[in-house]
């Protein structure tokens, strides 16, 4: 593991967790807790992204242990972000937002079994209430759980992808030069 990777990962984890203060300030129903994972992957590759994701879940679990079972989602997000970077989906918001929406679908499909079997779909207030809504419109328990996860993940991942794309394009030239993978991801190399 290079020194730059070692130096970046703690900040990437901190970005994921510090963004909650900004989300609270603007009052949007978002988590943005995978921003650091996606950013680390686009800057330094999937290894850095996976370590960032695992550490994000670990540190978040110290505050609220219910985050830990979702560590697998962070790994999936890192791998998907790597694919997105290689395919050039971070080149503009026009490609990043649909890519984020697709990640929202993948994340909700993978998080539903964890949410259902471990938490009975009670992970957060928003997810529990949308799951209840799903039950009321006649979905099965598992279907309602997917419905709740889908509604929360869908928009969140699209905004996260858009945010990372904006960050990559706003990188100062000197900083960007130190991250050749990021230059490739936005189509400048």
């Amino acid at each position: 593991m290079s020194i730059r990777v070692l130096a970046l990962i703690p900040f990437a984890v901190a970005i994921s967790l510090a963004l909650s203060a900004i989300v609270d300030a603007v009052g949007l129903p978002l988590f943005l807790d995978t921003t650091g994972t996606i950013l680390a992957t686009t800057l330094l590759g999937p290894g850095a992204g996976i370590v960032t994701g695992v550490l994000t879940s670990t540190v978040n679990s110290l505050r609220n242990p219910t985050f830990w079972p979702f560590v697998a989602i962070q790994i999936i997000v890192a791998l998907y972000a790597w694919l997105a970077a290689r395919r050039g989906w971070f080149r503009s918001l026009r490609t990043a937002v649909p890519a984020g929406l697709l990640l929202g679908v993948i994340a909700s499909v993978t998080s539903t079994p964890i949410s259902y079997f471990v938490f009975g779909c009670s992970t957060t207030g928003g997810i529990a209430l949308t799951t209840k809504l799903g039950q009321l419109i006649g979905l099965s328990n598992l279907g309602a759980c997917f419905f709740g996860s889908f509604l929360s993940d869908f928009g969140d991942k699209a905004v996260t992808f858009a945010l990372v794309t904006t960050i990559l394009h706003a990188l100062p030239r000197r900083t960007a030069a130190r991250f050749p993978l990021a230059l490739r991801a936005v189509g400048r190399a």
Partner: protein
Amino acid sequence: MRRLHPFTLLTLAVVLPALAWILPAPWGGAGTLITAMALLLTPGASPGFGAARTAVITAAPFWFFLYLLHGVGGMVSTGLRLSTMIASFVWLVAILPPARLVEAMVAAGWPVSAAFLFSATLQAVPALRERAQRLVDAQRCRGLATRGGPLVRLRALRALALPLVLSALHDVDERTLALETRGLVAGARRTALAPPADHRGEQALRWLLVLSCAVLLVWRVA
């Protein structure tokens, strides 16, 4: 209890929730929750009522939402398991300072990079949270509208998140230089300043706990 080796404390905090899910509900979950609460409340050896209150406050919403979604039966069986997990982790966080865990990792021969990542992350998170709050206050002073329609809020999110992330990436450059100057390289060995004692009895206890979990899991699946 505080004198136990960090790995023993970690094993206890992981094994209790594992047992809560492995053992049949609701009695398995009830037993593990009673054990976890006893760890939190044992006089003289535990973090005390403050930590117990944190565990109860964290677990309470789950009980409410579980009742809303699954009724009394589902609330009790899943609630006991979730509460065990929450109480065990709250106990662990309250009783084990991260610096002691890092010392134990170094003494056990973990790579220096793993120990660094863990301790550096724990330092970076509160620092960046504080910076995010300062940015929110500063941008509001400059007249940034953070409330309104979704587009206004998304624009505000961009105006707040961008400086936070770019300043963090700037810090990465400084940190890289500092680490290179201090000779932090992969494969380097560090000497723990005050390694926690790891007695044979504790090592045996850890293996016993993990093996018990495995045996019970096989019994439940079979």
